Structure formats: structure tokens, C-alpha cells
């Protein structure tokens, strides 16, 4: 037979079998499709959100070559004068960005610009304002974007009321931009009016620069000699910074989505391996008819590739649809609150889509690789002999390879983060998992060897069957071991995180009521006067004020949070990691978060320079504190030091302790009434704040649970399919047992027992492997991704429940498969050659 012809013939035989029993094909394709769909959906949602972020960044900076940015509070506008007059600067456009609280509720981003200068850099946005320049110069003139006008139900000529510093201000809508000018929900004002309106006279948020042709923007930025806390960035760097902020979370989600795909690969492996076992005779016949070993192997691989291609195409299409649905329902954020964009556009990068289809093929071919080798090893003469059964594959000597993989996995766990990602941790998990899967047959064999031979003939039969089919059992258990162990690891990680987070909340929220100026609203501050009013509210025993602000410590890194609060040098009131250390007594002290230590290499006992009030101020780093709220870093300093350094007496947060017998809710309402902060001021009881934080936490991890559930579902599907296939393959055996006097119920109980036993072994082994993987997740992946440490806690009840459900489902499925296999086929079954 010519190679092409023999492979085609083999494939035609396989195809005929699949047509006859399409279940295996459907399940394999579905497993790949679901895995690819999840991976594609997560990737496309994140890519769409990032693309939208990129669009917004480009829209914001227009054709500028450099954006000079300060913190949210802004920087002195004298910098504008200096930069605008620098040689090489063609256009310098000042911008003030503020979030205004609306009297009617909610907030509105307001952008203050010089219309003429801005139009030079952003003609697509400000070109629309031609003819309105004069009208815009009025101090109460506001231009709304189309989406803002639609959202606020306002038209040209209407008035909009804002609350600024406790006072109400009214602005008139002088124009509404066409929808194509910008998709953002925003208001535009003349920069002077915006500064006056928001109490930011003399301050700017950014300056967009267009440079003379031929100048290297990055090099030019380095020469600008900007004050501390102000950076100059190219638009590309600005976008990369947003990417850095969310990268760890996105990569973790991508990895999690790939788990489902990996489980799918094991399912393909299981179905193909079982198919090869079942097709033993047919494969032998093909060999006898002249198909070479290599051709047979290739035919099985081609079959796998075909499954992968169909699954890949279906999965990519499904993933695109899921991404579109998720984006239209909840925007681009997948739970972490880091990528909140208004986009409903799904990014459709052709290369990525092609890669997902290719990934489906690769995964399916990888799954078919070992079965293909096994197919080629079938000895035709022996397999064609009547009464021949496949020799039980001895537990192959895979201990060496498994040991190598486990050692490699352990070693990878100690690799430091690469490109800010826990790549060593991922490699460690992959190696440990692969090593553990190789040991499944040995584990099953060891478990069975330690079981005493039961007195019941039925149980003895069951045990004999299990002991003789270790290879088959190991194959069907691979998918469940992989998915369940990863689920266990994830559950331990999330549970440890949640428990640590809850305890951390208790430590950082010791007061009864909390006040916080909305991070979105820049038009209200807790002034000293407001603080005095707060302290005088009946029922308030004590207050503590805080000032939080963002600082930029490195251009390529997201800003870090500075928290100024009453702080003893011992850091007593903070949840510290380790103990405080002695610092230079002449320097004010700072406690840095674990993230700040990792990202900027700051160690306790060292010195940290912070850009405060336009200059670099040195702090002695007295210790590390645990901060689960900010993975990009935070630093706590004493409020008195901050006030001394900045001369500021404005605060962003306050803690309130109640007097004995004071009712929290009535005090809370009284505070709201006295301070009149409107939407810009949140006043919330500690309990509600903790609940809100935990709800946000659960929301952030909901997607991880969903992805894990799908992976376990695919794993369970693998077990179900294995039982179904094996039960059908064993019809003759059941028929003979019925002939010699076994009741149907006894046969079914035997099968259910087999199912329960195998699932219990798989789940038990998965649990052990999961515990191992969870150590890597908690201490390596989590630590390197988010830079915080967790207390290791195992959710025993939750895991026991899932394990029980899995074992019960497997037993039930095995019983149902047996019912199908034994229904009315007793007579026919023994006539079938087995």
C-alpha cells in the first residue's frame, strides 16, 4: 500500500467507527472547544480593554510626542511656562483633569484645556469647537461629550449643577460634541475656568508637548529636569504603564483559562487512548493488511489534529461571542477593577485568532501523541487471535522521568520573577503536574496492592478487574487528577487570601465609622474646618485624619499610594510583616508595603526618597506593612511629617470612634448632614465597609472559580466518557456474568463501585498533588504576581464537599453507563467477539 493511500484507508476506517459511535468524537471536540473558548474569551476581553485604554490614551494625548504628568493632585503651572519656552518644543498644551461631584448624584470627569493649543494637538476632538472658543471662555461654560449629554439627559443651553467644596456651582452647556469626536463620558472647559471651579488655581494635571521634527522624544524627556513626582512619558510608555498595572492579573487569568484547555488535552488523551485500546483488533487488521507502524501512528495523529482543528475553530468562535457578550454586559473588567472601560468592541486580532485555532490543534495532537505510539505498537498476530485481550500494560517505569520533572518543578519554584511575572512559578506547576500525572499508574497500583482481597465474590471480582486494568484506569483518571489538583490549589490560594484579607481588614479598620473623599471626586476636601465639625458631631469620641495621595516613583511603574496618618515610629497600629527596625533618628519614618519593597528594592533599615511638595524627601524605612489593597505599592508616613513638609491641612479620609452608647447609624447620618459632602464624601460604618471590601474580593475571584469549575467539569467529563466507553467495551463480559448467575443489579453495583473507587483514588491523589501545587501558588505565583504574603489555610469543608460530589457523580455515571451496557444485551453480548 502506498503511504498516502494506507493513511487514507486507516482514516476512513476510523471515520466509519466514529460515525457509528459519535459520542467520543463529540466529547473530544467539545472539550477542546470549551478550553479554547475560555482561553480566547479571557484573552479577547483583556485585549479589548487594553486596546480601549490605548485608544483613550491616544485620544488624550492626540499627536503629542510627550505627556508630562504629575500625580492626581497636580503640579505647579509654572512648569508649563518653563517647558513651553524650551527650545525644541513646538506646541505645549496644558491640561487639568478633575472629577466633579454632581448635585444630582454621580460624578463627571472634567477636562480643562486651552482650546487653541489643544486643537493643535487634538484636532479630531477640539476641531469641533471651532466657533465656540469665545463662548468657552465664559467661566460657567461647559461642553459635553455626546455620551455625557446622553447619560445626563442634557442638551445645549441646559444647566448642570456641581458641588464644589460644599458649595453648589452651575455650568451652562454651550455645546455637545458629536459622538464620533470621542466615546468618553466627559465635560470640557477652558482651563482657567476649570482651575477656578475646582479650586485648583495654579495647578495642572498634564502638559502635552509636540516636539520639533527629528527630536528623540524619550531622550528629550530625560533632559527635562522635572520636579519630583512629575514624569514625562511618550504615549507608548504611558500605555505600557497601564499594561504593567494589570499584567499580573491578566496573565494569571490567561493561565487559569489555559487550565481548562490543558484538562481538555488530557481528555483528548483519554479518549484517544481508550479508543486505541478498543480498536486493538481493527488496528491489528490494518497492520495485517499492510499499513506500516509509522502510517498508523500518523493516522491517529491526523485524527487528533482534525479533532483539534474543529474544536479550535468552534472554540475560537465561541470565545469571541463570549467576549462580546461579557464586554456588552460589564465592560472590559474581569473582576479586579483594574480595567474598567466602556468598550463593547471586541478586539479581533487575526493573528491571535489563528493562534487559538492552532493551539486547539497542538493540544489535540499532543493528547493523541502517546495513544498514537501505542497504536503503532499493536502486535497484529496476537491482537487478531480470538480470545486475546490486551495484556495489562505494566505500570511503566516512568519513575525516572517523573522524578526529573518533580525535581525540576521544585527548582523552578525558586526562580525569581521574570519580566515582573511568576514564570518560574508557572513552570514549576507545569513540571510538578506532569510528574504527578506520570505517577498516577504507580499510585493506583500501590493503592490496589494494599487492599486486602475481600471475601465477597463480587468485590473480589471488582478488585481483580481493577488490578488488571491499571493502565486504563490511569488514563481515565489523568484528566480528573489534573483538573481537581489545580482546583484544590486554587481553592487553597483563594481561601488563604480571603482569610488573610479578612483579618487584614480587621487590623486596618479598627474604628466604627469611616469617611472618605470619593477617589473619583476632586472637588471636595476634608479641611481642618470640616475636621473640627466632624469632631463636634454628637456621639463622636475621637477622630483620626489621613491624607492619601499618589506618587510616581518611576516613569514606567504605576504610581504608588502615600498614606499620611498618625503613626508612631514603632508602626504599632499597622499590620506589620516582621518587626520594625531602627532608622536614622534624624529622618522621618516610613513603612513600605511588600509590593513597594519588591518593585523598588527598598528594604527596612534603608532610606526611601519620596517626591513631596516638588522636592525629594528622605525617609527612614522602619518596616514592612501588609497591604492587600494596592499591588503597585504603598508607603505610610506620619501625618505630622506630611503636614510639616507640605504645609497642607487637607485630608482625604477619617476614622471615627464612637462615644459609649452612641448609635453608629445615627452618628453616621449626623456626619453626612453636618459635612454636606454629597456624593463626593462617603460616610460608612466599619461593618458595611468590610462587607463591601469582601464583596469586591469575591467578585474579583468569581471568574477564577468559574474557570476552575469548567476545568473540573471537563475533567469529570473525561471520567464519565471513560466509564461509558469501557462499559460498552465490556458488554460481553457483563453478558457472561449474567449467564453464570449474576443479577443485573449486582453487575451495576460492581460498576458503580469501580467508578466510586477510581474517582476516590483520582480525587485523593488530586488532593495530594493540589496541596503541593497550592504551596507554589501561595508562596511563589501569588507572591511574585501581587507582591504580598498570605497565611496558608486549607478550606477542608469546601474541598471535602467537592470531592464527595465528584466521587458520587463518578459512581452514578459508572452505574448509568453500566445500565446502558447491560440493557437487553445479555444474549447478544456473548455472541460478540471480544
Amino acid at each position: 500500500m502506498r503511504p498516502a493511500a494506507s493513511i487514507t484507508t486507516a482514516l476512513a476506517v476510523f471515520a466509519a467507527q466514529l460515525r457509528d459511535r459519535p459520542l467520543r468524537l463529540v466529547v473530544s471536540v467539545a472539550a477542546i472547544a470549551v478550553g479554547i473558548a475560555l482561553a480566547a474569551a479571557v484573552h479577547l476581553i483583556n485585549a479589548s480593554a487594553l486596546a480601549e485604554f490605548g485608544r483613550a490614551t491616544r485620544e488624550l494625548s492626540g499627536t503629542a510626542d510627550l505627556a508630562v504628568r504629575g500625580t492626581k493632585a497636580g503640579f505647579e503651572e509654572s512648569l508649563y511656562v518653563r517647558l513651553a519656552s524650551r527650545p525644541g518644543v513646538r506646541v505645549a498644551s496644558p491640561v487639568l483633569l478633575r472629577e466633579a461631584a454632581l448635585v444630582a448624584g454621580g460624578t463627571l470627569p472634567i477636562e480643562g484645556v486651552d482650546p487653541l493649543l489643544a486643537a493643535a494637538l487634538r484636532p479630531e476632538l477640539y476641531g469641533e469647537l471651532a466657533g465656540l472658543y469665545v463662548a468657552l471662555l465664559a467661566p460657567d461654560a461647559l461642553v459635553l461629550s455626546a455620551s455625557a449629554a446622553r447619560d445626563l439627559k442634557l442638551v445645549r443651553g441646559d444647566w448642570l449643577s456641581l458641588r464644589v467644596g460644599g458649595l453648589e456651582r452651575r455650568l451652562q452647556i454651550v455645546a455637545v460634541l458629536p459622538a464620533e469626536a470621542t466615546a468618553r463620558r466627559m465635560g470640557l472647559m477652558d482651563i482657567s475656568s476649570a482651575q477656578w471651579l475646582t479650586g485648583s488655581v495654579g495647578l495642572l494635571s498634564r502638559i502635552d508637548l509636540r516636539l520639533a521634527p527629528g527630536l528623540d522624544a524619550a531622550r528629550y524627556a530625560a533632559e527635562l529636569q522635572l520636579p519630583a513626582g512629575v514624569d514625562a512619558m511618550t504615549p507608548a510608555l504611558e500605555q505600557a504603564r497601564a499594561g504593567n498595572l494589570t499584567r499580573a492579573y491578566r496573565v494569571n487569568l490567561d493561565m487559569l483559562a489555559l487550565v481548562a484547555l490543558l484538562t481538555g488535552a488530557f481528555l483528548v488523551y483519554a479518549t484517544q487512548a481508550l479508543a486505541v485500546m478498543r480498536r486493538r483488533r481493527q488496528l491489528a487488521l490494518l497492520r495485517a493488511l499492510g499499513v506500516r507502524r509509522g502510517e498508523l501512528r500518523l493516522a491517529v495523529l491526523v485524527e487528533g489534529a482534525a479533532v483539534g482543528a474543529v474544536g479550535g475553530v468552534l472554540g475560537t468562535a465561541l470565545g469571541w461571542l463570549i467576549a462580546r457578550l461579557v464586554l456588552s454586559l460589564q465592560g472590559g473588567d474581569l473582576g479586579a477593577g483594574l480595567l474598567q472601560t466602556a468598550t463593547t468592541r471586541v478586539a479581533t486580532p487575526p493573528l491571535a485568532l489563528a493562534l487559538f485555532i492552532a493551539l486547539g490543534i497542538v493540544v489535540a495532537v499532543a493528547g493523541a501523541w502517546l495513544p498514537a505510539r501505542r497504536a503503532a505498537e499493536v502486535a497484529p498476530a496476537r491482537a487478531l487471535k480470538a480470545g486475546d485481550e490486551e495484556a495489562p500494560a505494566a505500570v511503566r517505569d516512568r519513575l525516572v522521568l517523573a522524578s526529573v520533572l518533580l525535581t525540576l518543578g521544585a527548582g523552578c519554584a525558586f526562580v525569581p520573577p521574570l519580566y515582573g511575572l511568576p514564570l518560574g512559578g508557572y513552570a514549576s506547576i507545569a513540571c510538578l503536574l506532569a510528574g504527578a500525572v506520570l505517577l498516577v499508574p504507580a499510585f493506583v497500583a500501590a493503592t490496589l496492592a494494599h487492599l486486602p482481597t475481600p471475601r465477597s465474590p463480587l468485590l473480589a471480582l471488582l478488585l481483580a478487574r481493577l488490578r488488571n486494568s491499571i493502565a486504563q484506569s490511569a488514563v481515565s483518571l489523568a484528566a480528573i487528577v489534573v483538573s481537581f489538583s489545580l482546583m484544590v490549589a486554587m481553592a487553597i490560594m483563594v481561601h488563604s487570601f480571603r482569610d488573610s484579607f479578612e483579618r487584614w481588614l480587621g487590623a486596618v479598620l479598627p474604628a466604627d465609622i469611616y469617611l472618605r473623599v470619593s477617589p473619583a471626586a476632586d472637588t471636595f476636601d476634608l479641611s481642618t474646618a470640616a475636621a473640627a465639625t466632624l469632631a463636634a458631631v454628637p456621639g463622636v469620641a475621637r477622630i483620626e485624619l489621613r491624607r492619601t495621595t499618589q506618587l510616581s516613583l518611576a516613569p514606567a511603574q504605576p504610581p504608588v499610594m502615600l498614606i499620611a496618618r498618625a503613626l508612631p515610629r514603632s508602626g504599632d497600629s499597622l499590620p506589620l510583616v516582621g518587626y520594625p527596625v531602627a532608622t536614622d533618628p534624624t529622618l522621618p519614618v516610613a513603612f513600605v508595603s511588600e509590593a513597594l519593597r519588591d518593585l523598588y528594592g527598598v528594604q527596612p533599615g534603608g532610606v526611601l526618597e519620596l517626591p513631596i511638595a516638588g522636592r525629594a524627601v528622605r525617609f527612614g524605612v522602619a518596616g514592612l506593612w501588609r497591604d492587600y489593597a494596592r499591588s503597585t505599592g504603598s508607603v505610610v508616613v506620619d501625618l505630622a511629617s506630611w503636614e510639616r513638609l507640605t504645609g497642607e491641612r487637607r485630608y482625604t479620609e477619617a476614622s471615627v470612634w464612637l462615644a459609649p452608647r452612641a448609635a453608629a447609624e445615627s452618628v453616621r447620618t449626623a456626619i453626612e448632614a453636618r459635612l454636606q459632602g454629597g456624593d463626593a464624601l462617603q460616610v460608612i460604618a466599619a461593618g458595611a465597609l468590610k462587607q463591601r471590601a469582601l464583596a469586591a474580593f469575591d467578585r474579583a475571584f468569581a471568574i477564577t472559580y468559574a474557570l476552575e469549575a469548567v476545568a473540573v467539569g471537563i475533567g469529570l467529563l473525561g471520567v464519565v466518557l471513560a466509564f461509558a466507553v469501557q462499559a460498552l467495551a465490556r458488554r460481553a463480559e457483563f453478558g457472561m456474568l449474567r449467564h453464570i448467575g449474576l443479577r443485573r443489579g449486582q453487575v451495576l453495583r460492581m460498576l458503580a463501585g469501580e467508578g466510586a473507587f477510581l474517582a476516590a483514588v483520582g480525587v485523593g491523589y488530586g488532593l495530594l498533588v493540589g496541596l503541593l501545587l497550592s504551596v507554589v501558588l501561595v508562596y511563589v505565583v501569588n507572591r511574585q504576581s501581587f507582591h504580598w504574603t498570605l497565611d496558608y489555610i486549607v478550606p477542608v469543608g469546601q474541598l471535602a464537599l467537592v470531592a464527595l460530589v465528584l466521587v458520587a457523580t463518578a459512581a452514578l455515571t459508572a452505574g448509568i453507563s453500566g445500565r446502558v451496557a447491560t440493557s437487553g444485551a445479555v444474549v447478544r453480548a456473548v455472541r460478540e467477539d471480544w
Partner: protein
Amino acid sequence: MSVPLLALAGLVRRYQADRPAVIDGLDFTLAAGEWIAIMGESGVGKSTLLNVIAGLDRADAGAVRVDGVELAALDDDALTLLRRQSMGFVFQAFHVLPYLSVGRNVALPLALNGVPEREIRPRVAAMLVDVGLEGMFERLPRELSGGELQRVAIARALVHRPRLVLADEPTGNLDPKSAAQVLALLGRAVRAHGGGGLLITHSRAAAASADRAYEFDGRTLVPLTVP
């Protein structure tokens, strides 16, 4: 008058209402100690007859009595028990469980009938001697030839001393020499255990090993003279 081991009276089995009956009013009796062969063309209903006798298939009309027990009066559990205790089966494709040793395969009916383990081993060993497989208790089926596998199946069919042995083409997968040995063994063993048996076969040589031979045409069993 002694009760026949097997009695069929007006037996009818029809698979579809609009098609002719596969078995159409068959009457037949088999006495204890008889080993008879039934021949017939493919599709004539020989195997159906065997299944109805075994209680694995129900007759549409007529009666099947085994040792005087009317099968139609038994539910599935009772039929299963009857097979377990009083019948032995030999199949063309052997159906020896690949994951049990030879001895454990043979021991299955004894274990199912609750025979204590201390009795099982000597009985199985003796049975293996009877079928010429002495010392093969611990061997695995895959180590055996086709003829040896069928001997295991015969040992399994006889070890619990059933009243009735039903053999469906037991030599279909064997070479002539092995077939002759298996048939001689089967006939000798059935008679030795005091029961009776039916041998379904296409082979005249196989039929010749029985006490009597019949040609089945669906309605009647016609006595056949085989050399």
C-alpha cells in the same frame, strides 16, 4: 415416571408479529444423563432455542421446564439463581475473564453460589485435572492457547455440577484436533456429573460426539444420523 431434565411443550418464539416465528410449536424432552447435539442452518433459531431454555429470552407461548420447574413462573432474580445453581454455559468465544487467573475464572460459579473458600480451591484443582489443565490454577488467560481457553470455559461450566450444560458452538474457534479433545471432554464430563446437556453446532464431527443428534428446522427436532 421420572421428571425429565428439560421439557419443551409447544414452544413459540417470535421476534416480530408480522414475521414467521423463529421457533414454532416445538416439543422436546431431555432426560438426565443425555448429551445431545442440535444442528441446523444459520439463522434457523438454534441459539434462540438455547437462550429461551436458559431463561435469557422469554417464550411467546408454550412452556419450558427445567427439572420440572416452569421458567415462565420465575422472575428475573429466580431465573438468575436457577442459572447460577443448575446451568453451565460454554460459548464459542470462550469469554474467560482476562483479569482473573485460570483458577479464579473456574471458581466463579462456586464463589457466586457461596461455596466456602476452603472448598473452592480443591474443587477447582480437581476440575482442572479433569479438563487436562492440572497445575494451571495461577496462570493468566493470555498465556493459554485457544484450546486451553475453551477447557477453562468447560471447567467453569461444570465445576458447580450443574444439572444442565448448554454449549453454543464451543469448537467454532478451535482447530480440529483441539475441537475433538474439547468435545470428548465435554461429553465425558457432562455424563460424569450426572446432568444433561445440549450442544449447538454446525459441525457434523462435533454432533457425532453426542449421544444423539437432531436437525432443527424451527418447528421440530428431526433425529439425525451422523457417522
